[in-house]
């Protein structure tokens, strides 16, 4: 970046926020109920698990890779958590049931680690290796549950949804904490800066002595942990852990990251872009229902937004051709 920051750059930097504000204004005009604390709390419930998944995949996309394993990892970790939680008594406040929480995060980390190893050691493109690992995850979840649902009724755990502070459920604050953690990793840790180095120019990073493979594996491991945390919130939200818990998160999270302005080419964007992206996607899906627009239009609208976002966020002159 040179010091001459054009107005276009400023506009680009703030465009996700501008789009978000415009959407909020649009839906509020159609139905004033949209702009209410109760509705924002509802949106936060729907958005928080998706936000954590999107934060995880943000790091991968910054590296210029892609991770499509989130649905499988979310399902597996949700089921592992549900199963262990009930096996250890099913009450968070008593006994050993709390062990299920770190165990789930650990499962996510292991899954992500393997995911990264498959990608790096076997030299399989990340989109293919992660997609395959995602299927493996869903398979494990189906195998563990044989299609049944695990119900989590414990009030202490469900407090994530049912306990409110200033109108927002506890899980919204967990989401906020996760954003700050992700931002800290991005800004203040070597690993976070290395993600940008790899995404900005892998060969250059390698030539400068960076162990690119290690960074990649660590990136996928970190993403796996975020997916696992997302799984815990998804279970808290519906009280159900099942092989389906992860479904829909791939589309929502990748869309959110891209709409937020993190380019798929890697090296730019970041945590706050993702936050804006997740909010945009959730405002649209909630707003469609609140405004009384047919819900089947929603996927079409989101698809269009992705194309617009990708077009805007790519400096097309710098790419000679597109594969």
């Amino acid at each position, binding site marked *: 970046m040179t010091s001459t920051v054009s107005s276009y750059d400023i506009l680009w930097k703030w465009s996700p926020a501008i789009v978000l504000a415009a959407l909020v204004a649009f839906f509020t005009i159609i*139905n004033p*109920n*949209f702009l*209410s604390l*109760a*509705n924002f709390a*509802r*949106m936060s*419930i*729907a958005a928080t698990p998706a936000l954590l998944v999107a934060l995880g995949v943000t790091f991968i996309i910054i590296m210029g890779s892609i991770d499509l394993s989130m649905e499988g990892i979310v399902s597996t970790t949700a089921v592992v958590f549900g199963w262990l939680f009930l096996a250890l008594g099913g009450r968070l406040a008593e006994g050993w049931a709390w062990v299920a929480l770190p165990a789930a995060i650990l499962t996510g980390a292991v899954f992500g680690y393997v995911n990264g190893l498959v990608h790096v050691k076997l030299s399989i493109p990340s989109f293919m290796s992660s997609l395959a690992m995602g299927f493996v995850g869903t398979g494990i979840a*189906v195998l563990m549950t044989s*299609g049944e*649902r695990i*119900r989590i009724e414990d009030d202490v755990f469900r407090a994530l*949804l*049912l306990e409110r502070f200033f109108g927002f*459920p506890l899980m919204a604050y967990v989401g906020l904490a996760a954003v700050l953690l992700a931002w800290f990793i991005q800004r203040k840790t070597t690993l976070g800066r290395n993600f940008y180095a790899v995404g900005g120019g892998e060969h250059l990073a390698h030539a400068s002595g960076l162990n690119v493979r290690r960074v990649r594996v660590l990136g996928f491991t970190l993403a796996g942990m975020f997916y696992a945390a997302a799984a815990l919130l*998804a279970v808290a*939200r*519906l*009280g*159900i852990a099942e092989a*389906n818990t992860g*479904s*829909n998160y791939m589309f929502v999270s990748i869309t959110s990251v891209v709409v937020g302005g993190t380019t798929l080419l890697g090296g730019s964007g970041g945590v706050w872009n993702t936050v804006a992206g997740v909010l945009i996607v959730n405002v649209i*899906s*909630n707003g*469609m*229902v*609140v*405004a*009384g627009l*047919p*819900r*089947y239009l929603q996927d079409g609208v989101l698809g269009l937004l992705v194309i617009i976002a990708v077009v805007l966020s790519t400096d097309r002159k710098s790419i000679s051709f597109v594969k």
Partner: protein
Amino acid sequence: METELENENAFIKTFIEQEVSNRRHFLLASAAGLAGVAALGMGFPAMAAGPAQRLPMAWSYRDRSNPYWNEVVSGGEAFVESLGMKKGDLVHLINNGSSEKSLADIKAFLAKTGGKCAIACDPNDAPNARPVVESVAKAGAFVSTIWNKTDDLHPWDFGDNWVSHMTWSDVEPAEKTARILLNAMGGKGAIVGIGGIPANGPAIERRKGLMKALKDFPNVQLLDYQPADWSTQKANEVMQGFLTRFGDKITGVFSANDSMAYGILEALRAEGKKLPVVAYDGNPQAVDLVMKGELLATCFTNPPWAGGISAALAYHAAIGTFKPSKEPKAHREFYGPTILITQKDAQAFKKKYQSGSIPKYDWTDFWSPTTGPIRA
């Protein structure tokens, strides 16, 4: 590069070899089974009693990893076991959603058994019903079908060989669950509806059922009906949207299936609200919720019974227990069972149908659980 190619060739070669030997094993195994059948079944009409009636039986269906089909075929196995045979004696013709494979498998089974067999089958799609039943009739075998057939095609046009066809209409049962909801609301107020994948058959029929019921309740307003694709998560979000849009105006919720109802109940619970909700499918957990009073009603279609009775109908027609052409049309083409579950009967229902294994059915009671002839 060359070695890579060679590797690939080697891989393909081993793969083909494995497949061939797998097929050989399969053929050998089925030949052995057949020989047993032939030895036991020589002149089978004469041997009316004992395990000698080992007529080869097959169930042709989509996919066992699908919970619905798993239940259906488990019923088929329960029937086979009731004859003193082993579970494994039922031949599974799995078509994975391909009508071509469905037909090819059935033809192969007919050829293998020389037409001395009984088949239960979902032809996968409506046009495939004709070639399936025609080849069965030509081979002199017996088949019962479920779900798919064209409206112009009827079992009675094929003499005895096409024993029966069973399907389900969700319109009436959905109308009944809707009536339970509307009555519980005292016939006034406003409801929202949450439906399945828009173009999906059952989704269309269940919505139609709600609309029919609403005609008799002029004081209940349908605020909106939106699809949530049978998904718990999406239904949760749609319900949240409805709460923002209509708030306290909503006094009841119609859900087109159980898994969406779970999401709806959680959306209400998050706000400390409780509304009457009806669902559909009769999943064990939904039945639990009905017992607890969190769901008002759900509806069960008894897939294991359907799977067992289809096999039983074809089998008993084949061994001459009854002559299909002597039966009334209502015994040839009919709707499958639908059982409404409300709080007062949930306990009894659970005990009868969902306490572990498949209940012991009388597999010669072919028609009493069915719900009338199919209307075009």
